[in-house]
């Protein structure tokens, strides 16, 4: 029995000795690195033949979760042609990262889709093309209909390797519904 106890103590001692190599995971906390985050979408409508610019924004500066995004209501003149520009930002970083440039660089993987509902409110046509001659939608033209209210859905489709000019392939990077008022 004496022998038993001796061996037991030896083992227990050996065990405790092995805990000296503890490491504190708190010393190595790395900042989150969400490299696909988009927090802000800015639409710029310029009335054709004028310099009247209206800007509308949807932004969620704290990213997904937390506070919900705040989205402006779009208000445009009836039966008017606008040129439309779009800007994407990641405002969770300081300074804010301009995602528009990155989308432009990878224009053969991205496609903006503007869908008005009801469809008669606004018709959008992209005015830029990527290397494969497919539309991008960073700049385009919008023609409004008669006075009415509805929604304008703006989507950025990420279509790495699958872009074919339609909205179907890929997945959404942006999917925002703006209230739309034509007056």
């Amino acid at each position, binding site marked *: 029995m004496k022998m038993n106890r001796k061996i037991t103590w030896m083992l227990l001692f050996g065990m405790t000795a092995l805990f000296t190599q503890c490491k504190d995971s708190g010393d190595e906390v790395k900042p989150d690195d969400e490299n696909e985050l988009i927090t802000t979408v800015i639409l710029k409508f310029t009335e054709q033949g004028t310099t009247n610019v209206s800007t509308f924004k949807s932004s969620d500066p704290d990213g997904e979760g937390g506070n919900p995004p705040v989205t402006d209501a779009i208000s445009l003149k009836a039966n008017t042609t606008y040129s439309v520009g779009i800007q994407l930002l990641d405002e969770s970083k300081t300074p804010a990262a301009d995602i528009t440039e990155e989308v432009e660089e990878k224009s053969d993987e991205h496609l903006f889709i503007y869908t008005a509902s009801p469809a008669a409110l606004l018709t959008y046509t992209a005015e830029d093309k990527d290397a494969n001659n497919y539309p991008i939608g960073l700049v385009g033209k919008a023609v409004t209909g008669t006075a009415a209210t509805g929604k304008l859905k703006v989507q950025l489709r990420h279509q790495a390797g699958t872009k074919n000019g339609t909205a179907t392939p890929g*997945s959404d990077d942006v999917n925002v519904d703006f209230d739309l008022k034509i007056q």
Partner: protein
Amino acid sequence: MVTVGYAQNSSCACFIKGEVRDQHSGLPVVGATVLIIGQNNGVFTDAQGKYQINNLCPGTYQLECRIVGYTSSLHKIDLTEGHEEDFSIEENEIHLHDVEITAHRTDAPASQPLTTISGSELFRTRGDNLAESLKGLTGVTSLQTGSSISKPVIHGMHSNRVLIMNNGVRQEGQQWGSEHAPEIDPFVATRLSVVKGAAGVRYGSDAIGGVILVEPEELPFNKSLSGEVNLVGFSNGRQGVSSATIQGGIKGFTGFGWRAQGTFKRGGNVRTPNYYLDNTGLSEKNFSLSVGYRLKGFGIDVFYSRFDTQLGIFSGSHIGSVTDLLNVIKNGEPLIKPGFTYDIARPNQNASHNLIKAETHYHFKDGNRIQWTIAQQLNDRNEFDLHRPRNDSIAALNRPELTFKLNTLTNDVVWDHKPIGGKISGQVGVSSLYQYNLMSGRPLIPNFNQFNIGMFWIERYAKNGWEMEAGIRYDYRTLATHRIVRKEKVSTDFTFSNFSGTLGATKNISQTLSARLNVGTAWRAPNVSELFSDGVHHGAAAYEKGDSTLTQEQAINTIASVKYTSNRLTVELGGYYNYIADYIYLKPQPEPMLTIRGAFPYFKYTQTNAVFRGIDLSVDWELIKNLTLTSKLSYLNVYDKSNDSYLVMIPPNRWDNQLKYQLPVLGQVKDAFISVGNLSVARQKRVPANSDFAPPPKAYSLWNLQAGGTLPVSEKNEFEISISVQNLFNTAYRDYLNRFRYYADDMGRQVSLRLKWKFGV
């Protein structure tokens, strides 16, 4: 060793006698029950481990050896041959054959159902991953993410609620993730066992649903060189698997044994009946080395294994918004349908797992035994999203979007006290676990340090066909988490502690009938993902939010079974009732989560009281000579008591039937068979209302064919071959527990060819 013999004169005076030894130490086992199935004969081994059963008539018998603390073993004894021979010969000349009884130690609770796959049955699962290998057992299914990632599900529970003991060490990976398969190569094991029900006392917290034991064979101390080579080919995914084991003793050094083992696996895109699934290839490279030494009662084993896998994840499962998901569901099949390729592109996961373990034990002369196991595990997981960063210079680095490094150190000291009066045996033990997790990439789970210490005490008592078991355990756990919230480091500490208990009994009512009952408790602390997850899950199109105020789950599980065994019929019927207080699950929230990507359904980790109750039935019936029907039924009903509702992701009921014909001896081929089988899986009707994007898939029925046999070449050389066809009619189906059921069908027809060469010198 068992000696089978005949005494003189009377035809019913044959006897069986022998000795029972511990496989590990070679020492005799005292107080083991040796009985003949179907006969009213049972004896105990004496102080030298010897026993004798007298007055047997000639015939074939099944000899069962049961010992407290060991797995039971069955041996077929043939007393028919030679019964017309001269009975007056000396005892040592009338040996018919020697059957080795080596008792295999197990820590599994004696009163809980334990099912084991080994030998030829295990051979016919070779090449499959761990969860797939266990799928044939009643009450066991798998949770899949496509066809290459599966996790075992026991009685409806998985992930952190199922504990895996890999070669005696608690497997520690990122188990909280339903798409994180256990990083274990089943080729390491010669036995895969499942303990069903809460087994918290012996194995510690988390074992609420059950425990999976992955066990290699004992090292071949002082034996000559031997080994085996396995080759497996699968038609679907054009997958090839090769694995080899070589082992032996060391000449000139008594007491040594060693083993080396390695596996390669490579597969390409998997095909459903109508189309290929994009990016579903896999590649796996594993190896293990072990060496051991024995001297009288002392023994030491050192084991190292490395598991390394690269898994493609079906690209159609990356969902940017709910609109994307609804579009795929509406389309009925994936939008991308490529051809066949072995290439693995994004999204994919690369995981490696290193385990080093040293186990040492000493058998004292008086019957006491002490064992110390120390192990370190390093789990390294890298996950690559579908899209690279938009910024070219960062994208060029091709870094994973998620990196986890989990380092775990475990220590277990177990003392088996010497049997008291040959009837009471027991053990006390201390287990500790220390681990830290480092992660980087997009926000998912925090860094953490975790420490756990547990103490347990189990006693078992065996007398007159009764075997009783009682145990208690106390665990204490601290968890320190660190994460970045709005650019500031936030640290949160948690402490959890709890008692677990077990009480069980096994009764051999007659030689053909036995019954067992166990009431066990287990608990589980909330894991880091349940506490802190906060973001969109791109595979599920859901916004998942953790809750740092969650408390621990507490399970009380009652499990009872009755087993009838006769020569032609074996029936095992089991029932269970597992009550889990504060069961943690993802509860759908009434308001969606709004993001720049659109509105996502919002789920929050919440606690409720749940009941898991079910029935497992298995029947083996030899209808006529050589024709056997095996039928397995798993029924499970899960209820959310607090909300008067059901829970999501519960396996539907299933019924598995197999008709097997054992072929008569064909030349040199033995154990040749052909079989036909059917698996019927019902539709899961018990789902909470409005909690899912698509209703649970329809019921399905799959047919399979199998054939196989063994060809002995010489005493130590043999070939074993099997060919099987799964999903024979190429049926298109979807399984409720496949997380990709929204996007695509399950795997189509699969033809597998398996070949094993076992050799020795």
